């Protein structure tokens, strides 16, 4: 009996001690201290991020869709750990798209994802999708199949996403319909615009279609108006509404197709766009003949970051005005964005079966040094730095000479990036928060083959050999 009681006493004591240990552990969990002893700042958060996280009041659910084998997996994980440590409102959930198929499907439906390796930031009513191309700078290297990661900019991407979410405002982008435009509600695999619509939603933009008949003007809440490839003439009243909106610091993105008259021409002319009734042919930069690959970009915020090829399909030229006389305050500044190659030309005889460069019939050569053929322009008016105290929002317009380049079929290469970049310039949504990317830290020792062999013998043979020798000595002594 006495033994039983002592045993019981011991068991209770041990159990109580266990509870005590868990309690201490819990207190420690609530008051974590995390120190980085290594001298590296690779995952160290910048001041900007720390301030943002300190004042974070929303619960942010972070869902990471990354395969464990992915090259960025560890970087993303280690970085998000720092975010989690800094704010209790950050909850990170890991979903491996290859393993958690059911959960991936469910969440992919919820967030409208169509690619793996993304990080979704969600504060309940709003979410933002950060793609792997936003997290790292990658470069294709000859001879290596996978792109090589050259810099890690996860902090920039994540902090911008959180910042954009808690800012709360979702700019409303209207897509004009009613004149045979491309439609974001069109899920056609070829011509539809649904993919770019989804991309806009993922970028925290509110997307809506707009029919002008029955409206008094462009809605007040419009952050931008996209006119995606109208194929029918608009009425002068509608064009007036658009121009009125544009003049009131509006933001308009026009995608024009070749051989289509839209009614927008007089307005565009007033804003300094020279339109030609042409198709641009570029035998140097084409795959099928009808497409034109753009490689030459002008220095403008829209195309600054462009490094992949953009494919336009049967584009028309969009040129800045020939004569830029004087620079009055009121004159819009028109900047060409990208040019076709020197071998290209603007073909005016579009009815003829074979395209041929005939300058006497009005064709224009692409190798003109003064006026290379451009396929898109960015227009800004009222952005003067000499304004007194009053800051007036400038009017901005972007005109591209093709609308098919972001249809569901053509979202290749840099097409979507170019579209988003132009839209972000219109919305003045350039990088929300700038944090310098971190270059990948790689160690490389210059060890010769013979040195390696020597080290192999030292590490794997000599040092264990010491243990063996001692062991044998002890054994011999014990035998005596």
């Amino acid at each position, binding site marked *: 009996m*006495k*033994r039983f009681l*002592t*045993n019981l006493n*011991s068991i209770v*004591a*041990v159990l109580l*001690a*266990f509870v005590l*240990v868990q309690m*201490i*552990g819990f207190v*420690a*969990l609530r*008051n*974590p*201290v*995390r*120190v*980085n*002893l*290594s*001298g*590296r700042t*690779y995952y160290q958060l910048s001041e900007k991020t720390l301030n943002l996280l300190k004042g974070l009041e929303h619960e942010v659910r972070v869902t990471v869709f990354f395969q*464990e084998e992915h090259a960025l997996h*560890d*970087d993303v994980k*280690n970085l998000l750990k720092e975010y989690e440590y800094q704010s209790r409102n950050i909850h990170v*959930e*890991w979903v*491996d798209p290859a*393993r*958690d198929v059911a959960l991936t499907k469910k969440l992919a439906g919820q967030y409208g994802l169509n690619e793996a390796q993304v990080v979704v930031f969600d504060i309940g009513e709003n979410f933002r999708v950060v793609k792997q191309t936003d997290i790292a700078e990658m470069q294709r290297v000859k001879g290596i199949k996978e792109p090589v990661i050259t810099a890690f900019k996860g902090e920039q991407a994540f902090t911008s996403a959180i910042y954009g979410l808690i800012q709360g405002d979702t700019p409303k982008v209207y897509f004009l319909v009613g004149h045979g435009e491309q439609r974001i509600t069109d899920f056609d695999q070829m011509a539809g615009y649904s993919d770019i619509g989804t991309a806009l939603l993922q970028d925290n933009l509110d997307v809506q279609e707009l029919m002008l008949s029955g409206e008094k003007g462009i809605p007040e809440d419009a952050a931008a108006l996209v006119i995606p490839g109208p194929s029918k003439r608009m009425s002068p009243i509608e064009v007036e509404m658009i121009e009125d909106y544009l003049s009131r610091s509006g933001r308009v993105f026009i995608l024009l197709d070749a051989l289509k008259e839209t009614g927008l021409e007089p307005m565009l002319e007033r804003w300094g766009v020279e339109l030609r009734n042409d198709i641009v042919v570029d035998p140097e930069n084409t795959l099928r003949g009808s497409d034109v690959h753009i490689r030459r970009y002008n220095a403008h915020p829209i195309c600054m970051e462009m490094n992949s090829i953009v494919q336009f399909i049967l584009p028309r030229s969009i040129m800045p005005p020939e004569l830029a006389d004087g620079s009055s305050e009121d004159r819009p500044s028109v900047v060409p964005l990208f040019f076709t190659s020197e071998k290209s030309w603007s073909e005016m005889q579009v009815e003829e079966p074979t395209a041929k460069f005939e300058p006497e019939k009005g064709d224009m050569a692409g190798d003109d040094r003064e006026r290379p053929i451009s396929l898109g322009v960015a227009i800004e008016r009222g952005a003067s730095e000499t304004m007194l105290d009053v800051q007036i929002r400038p009017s901005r317009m972007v005109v591209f000479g093709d609308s098919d380049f972001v249809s569901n079929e053509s979202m290749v290469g840099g097409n979507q990036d170019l579209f988003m970049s132009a839209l972000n310039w219109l919305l003045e949504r350039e990088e929300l928060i700038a944090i310098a990317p971190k270059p*990948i*830290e*790689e*160690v*490389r*020792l*210059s*060890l010769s083959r013979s*040195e*390696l062999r020597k*080290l*192999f013998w*030292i*590490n*794997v043979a000599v*040092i*264990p050999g*010491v*243990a*063996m020798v*001692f*062991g*044998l000595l*002890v*054994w011999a002594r*014990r035998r005596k």
Partner: protein
Amino acid sequence: MGVFLSLLKKELRTCFYSPIAYVVMFFFWILTGGNFYWLLINLAHGESLTSASQWMFSGFVLPFAIPVIVPLITMRLFAEERKLGTLEALLTTSVKVTELVLAKFFGAFIFYVVLWLPAIAYTCFQIKLAPAEVTGFPDLGALQAGVLGVMLVGALYIAIGLFMSTLTSNQIVAAISGFAILIGSLFVSMYMAYTAQSQSIRIVGQYYSSFAHMMEFSRGIVDSRVVVMYLGHAAWFLFAAVRVVEGRRV
């Protein structure tokens, strides 16, 4: 204190006089040596700093080797004395059980530290070959954190092994139950931390997964939550061991 020191001295003597210690040492040193050699090969081809420093104390071999090695060290501690009957003799003296348990714990722990000494030798070779200021590797801060991590993991494992050894008079039983608990918990916590479906299970798994902790430590991160977890649980197992041994005194 004097009693504790003499107990510790006796413990170390027994440990370093047993051939099994050298067998353990031999195989573990082959493992750490091979692990470091593999790291060097990777470094010769170019390797990211994070993976390199993680390889130092973690990687694919060492986290699984430690739970195999530790029960071999600890199986002897109480089981042997119980079998030989020396434990009963010791308990009749004025020796405090706590002192006895701590002496045995630190005896095993010192041996465990000796097991890790070559890792420092490897680093010295490597620094001689390519100075750390040039390559950025090894990072001394990360090394310190890695050593701390290895020691914490070892302390907990040794405490568990020691506790297992108090339960039986058979060394083999002590060793095998030690393996079972350590390897089992390692894999279960790894499974929970990395592949479990439910988020809460993952959090619990990450809290207990020494594999995940070693990754963090070896890249220089010291987290108070993890340190408290190891020390607290090690202390608890030692306390349990004390109660078990005291139970035999009655």
